[in-house]
């Protein structure tokens, strides 16, 4: 009785997974391992080692890496401050940090564009103060800024979760046993929140690695990420086989990331959220 009920409840999930995960992956895989005539080939997958594609992959990986590190550096202090703060203040600060997520993603990136463009708000302020304008937009730095701005909440929430779920007793015990504040941080708080950092890394690194919209808008189309090449293969070049091959190659990097950092996700996902 109970079993048939749970089976019934799982039907929507099964339909969802088959329709939107399994079938698309089969399509992508079958395109990736065939050429335009339908013959089997590995060329599309190996095309990732082509100098242009390799360069774009390295650019994607390095920008995603920098963004992820910046997100960790920004999220950790906030999490520790929030741990020490009063419960009501905590929810207000959290609310303010999450608020931008409620706005449309493209809109936020366009707003960022207004802010950092050559004649934008920041440069107008600088020239108003008699300083030289800065070259901000259409650089790799601008893309990193956009990624950090967009993905910071995805790092913040799991990190905060695991920092908040460390029992006060553990920290008090450490203090009783003679640890100073730094020691508590490095020996207790950081190791116990690594699970949250791990899932934060997966949630920030993976989307930044496959990003192409931010690169188009804030990078001025001058910086080519692998996501841009895949988009071009699908829309302009109409070479769906190569586009699929590169997507699958990128998926392998996604899987590696999830394997390395995603193992502690279950621990991190319990707690206030």
């Amino acid at each position, binding site marked *: 009785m109970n079993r048939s009920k749970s089976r019934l409840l799982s039907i929507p999930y099964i339909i969802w997974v088959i329709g939107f995960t399994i079938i698309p992956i089969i399509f992508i895989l079958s395109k990736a391992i065939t050429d335009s005539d339908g013959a089997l080939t590995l060329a599309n997958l190996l095309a990732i080692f082509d100098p*242009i594609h390799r*360069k*774009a992959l390295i650019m994607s990986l390095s920008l995603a890496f920098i963004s992820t590190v910046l997100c960790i550096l920004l999220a950790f202090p906030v999490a520790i401050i929030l741990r020490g703060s009063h419960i009501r203040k905590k929810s207000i600060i959290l609310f303010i940090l999450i608020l931008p997520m409620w706005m449309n993603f493209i809109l936020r990136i366009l707003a960022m*564009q207004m802010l950092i*463009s*050559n*004649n*934008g708000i920041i440069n107008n302020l600088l020239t108003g103060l008699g300083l030289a304008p800065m070259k901000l*937009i*259409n650089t790799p730095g601008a893309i990193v800024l956009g990624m950090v701005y967009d993905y910071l909440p995805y790092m913040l929430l799991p990190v905060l979760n695991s920092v908040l779920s460390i029992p006060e007793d553990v920290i008090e015990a450490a203090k009783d046993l003679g640890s100073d504040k730094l020691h508590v941080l490095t020996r207790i708080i950081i190791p116990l929140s690594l699970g949250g950092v791990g899932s934060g890394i997966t949630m920030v690194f993976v989307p930044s690695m496959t990003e192409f919209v931010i690169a*188009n*808008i804030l990078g*001025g*189309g*001058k910086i*080519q990420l692998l996501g*841009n*090449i895949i988009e*071009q293969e*699908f*829309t*302009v*070049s*109409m*070479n769906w086989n190569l586009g699929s091959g590169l997507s699958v190659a990128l998926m392998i990097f996604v899987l590696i990331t999830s394997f390395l950092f995603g193992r502690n996700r279950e621990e991190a996902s319990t707690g206030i959220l």
Partner: protein
Amino acid sequence: MKKRIISAICTIATGALLISGCGQTGANSSSGAVPLTGETLTVFNYSEYLDPDMLEQFTRESGIEVKYEEATTAEELYTKYKAGGISYDLVCTSDYMVKRLIDEGEAQKIDFNSLGNISNIGSRYWEINKAIDPDNSYALPYFWGTLGILYDTTKVNGEIDSWDVLFNGEYSGEIIMQDSMRDTFMVALKYLGYSLNTTDEAQIREAADLLMKQKPDVEAYLVDEARDEVVAGNATMAVVYSGEAYLGHLYNPDLAYVVPKEGSNVWVDSWIVTKNCRNTDAARKFLDFLCRQDVATANFEFIYYSTPNEAVIKSMDAELKEDPAIVPTEESVDLCEVCTQVEGDTTELYNELWKELKAQ
């Protein structure tokens, strides 16, 4: 009052439908309209490329329901068309894509002379369209224009009349190029004195080399934002379509538009009736409706691209008529070529070189 509330709700509901991506403008059943005939037309067009009120008006007048679908680029349109999920009756797209669809047997011949308002379309545009449709039997010109340089007159030295300003390094970091493969190659090919439809590998490579050398001077490769960047003063000049140039000029009167003396690309977006269209009478009614002066005027005032409808041009204000971004002069168009679809090998070469340029 009640009626008003109901119509307001209808408007909101239609809006919600549009926003939710259905893209379907249902028939408006306001009073005084011809009853629905049960006929439908599926129309596929670029986004924001037709005054939505005109779709409603067409349904009111003819009783034919219009299912309206949109795409942002010719490539996206082609991909969606070929995906086969929807059977389209009428498609509006760019010249080279029209040619591709005709070549692939996707279009059907239409006797344009049977349309009552066809004489509104000037012979000049049928001539231009012969580059993609030699007998003028498939494609009906809808909007057209040129590609040129939009620049801020307060920031340049002297008058601009050549592509040279994009390549001589004088305006390094102040140039916006099109983030569109053929358009950007066109600039380099024309500057070098070649045809923009060349299939000569050496010429295309020479153009690519020139573009690679130019890249450090380019501030950004953009499509829709190119105009806005010049308007906002973030860049001095941009390669843009003439229609965009007109709107740019409205926002900032210091901007000017020029078709360089080396020649450029003249483009025509046209309507075709697809081979899948069963109800060609309805399709012809729709095309005839688009050629009618009041409808063409409404669409022109919605888009502000150059119209091939001479009845509309005649009714324009003198200021509009003399704006080269709205009514390109015959001399400037004589220097221009229509961009046609190139063969497979050349396309592959373009794709490779474009990727190389962007990855540099």
